[in-house]
């Protein structure tokens, strides 16, 4: 495995923090587009084409209502399209709504990639020593929803074999659902206590205890960290100079296309595309080597 996940957890974590921060701070359309492109490339390299298309559809369903909401509540902007209940609906508000909701979609996408790459064991490795209690709680919280889903399926299936859901009547189904939920809640409480107890029994978080871990900081991690650091400095300086400033009200700002601006856009694009390229390269070389066998 030579994908992005094979890098040291600290490198991955820093990269995610940077990506999400840059995406959330800037409203510049190029930054948002770069984040979107990078996110989808990475997601596609991780999960394959079909899942990516599904994700694209899901993102679109998320995007539309959020984009439409803004012009209903914000009436700033010069280009008035029509009036709704005596309030102007403007083009600028629509564009801003689109950009903002695209930003949210990007951050959600990156978070999905994050949970696939930075698994619980890596998170515990990073924070188990520094903040043992919070680290454990956080890792359990991240795991909570998938675990919940998994357990619901299990309970549902076992209930089905016991004759639940045999009838079509609504009260019966509701009663069955409540029973499943009831057992799920009590199970999840028990499970969390079990986990905590088990960790305690193994001496988790005790002073002076060492752990074995598979993660070692290799040279390639250092190289990637160096590249990331360089890019971060460049991007932060762009932010400081105001290269990623953009405004939408009362009129949408003109996209700057001077050579230096294009250089800035290239920098942010490359920064966002790093994980996607590494992951895709890993997958492709893997395929190539397998084809030779």
């Amino acid at each position, binding site marked *: 495995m030579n994908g992005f996940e094979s890098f040291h957890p600290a490198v991955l974590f820093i990269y995610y923090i940077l990506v999400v921060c840059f995406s959330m701070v800037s409203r510049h359309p190029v930054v948002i587009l770069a984040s979107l492109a990078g996110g989808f490339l990475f997601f596609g390299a991780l999960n394959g084409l079909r899942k990516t298309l599904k994700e694209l559809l899901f993102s679109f369903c998320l995007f539309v209502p959020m984009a439409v909401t803004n012009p209903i509540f914000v*009436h*700033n902007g*010069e280009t*008035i*399209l*029509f*009036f*709704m*209940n*005596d*309030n*102007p609906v403007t083009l600028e508000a629509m564009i801003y709504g689109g950009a903002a909701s695209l930003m949210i979609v990007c951050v959600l996408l990156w978070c999905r990639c994050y949970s696939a790459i930075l698994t619980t064991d890596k998170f515990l490795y990073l924070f188990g020593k520094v903040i043992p209690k919070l680290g454990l709680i956080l890792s359990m919280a991240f795991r909570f929803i998938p675990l919940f889903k998994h357990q619901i399926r299990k309970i549902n299936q076992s209930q089905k074999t016991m004759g639940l859901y045999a009838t079509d009547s609504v009260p019966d189904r509701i009663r069955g659902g409540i029973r499943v939920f009831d057992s799920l809640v009590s199970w999840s409480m028990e499970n969390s206590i079990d986990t905590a107890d088990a960790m305690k029994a193994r001496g988790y978080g005790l002073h002076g205890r060492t752990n074995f871990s598979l993660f070692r900081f290799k040279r390639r991690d250092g190289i990637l960290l160096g590249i990331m650091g360089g890019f971060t400095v460049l991007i932060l300086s762009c932010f400081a100079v105001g290269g990623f400033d953009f*405004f939408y*009200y*009362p*009129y949408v*700002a003109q996209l700057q296309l001077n050579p230096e601006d294009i250089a800035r856009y290239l920098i942010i694009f490359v920064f966002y595309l790093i994980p996607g390229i590494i992951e895709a390269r890993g997958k492709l070389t893997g395929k190539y080597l397998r084809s030779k066998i």
Partner: protein
Amino acid sequence: MKKNIIMIGVVILLVAILVSGTKFQSVDEYYLTHMEDIKEDSETVTISIRCDTVLDNWDKLDPQLRDEKYVPSDGVILPETTYVLRPGDTAFDILNRVCRYNKIHMEYQGIENNAYGSAYIKGINYLYEFSCGKLSGWMFTVNGKYPGKGCSTYEMKNHDKIEWIYTCDLGRDVGNEYNGADMQKEKDKS
């Protein structure tokens, strides 16, 4: 199948209710407001909209608003003009009507969304609250005094002179002592 048809019907009904509850107007339709001519016996008010404080705080103003279009060089968005007062008109009604008549952009927060039970003027002529520093926004005076009331709860009388003024310092720079004194008291307490 039957369930689906019912569901679709419910959705269509909801959309229909929503659409019938909203009023759609084209831009021309909206600005086509009627203003009565001033006759001898009609009651009148005088209104003006000004933003000269922005000129003194030019560096605080949002860069995209630094334009003659948004902040006129003399600070006058609407010079003093006299209009007919309809019975029961509040300060807000007059501003709303005048802005429509003169095609000046204006955004407000409706009474239903406001904690103080009055409409709140968020921005006039693309100049919004907080556009010129953290303490900026629109205020109004009637006959040179600050009423200390919401604009849609203040009823106008004949020959009133109403001024909408943009402040960059919570009203202190446009002569509203009420806020200033209040702030001072808070400071003394702490």
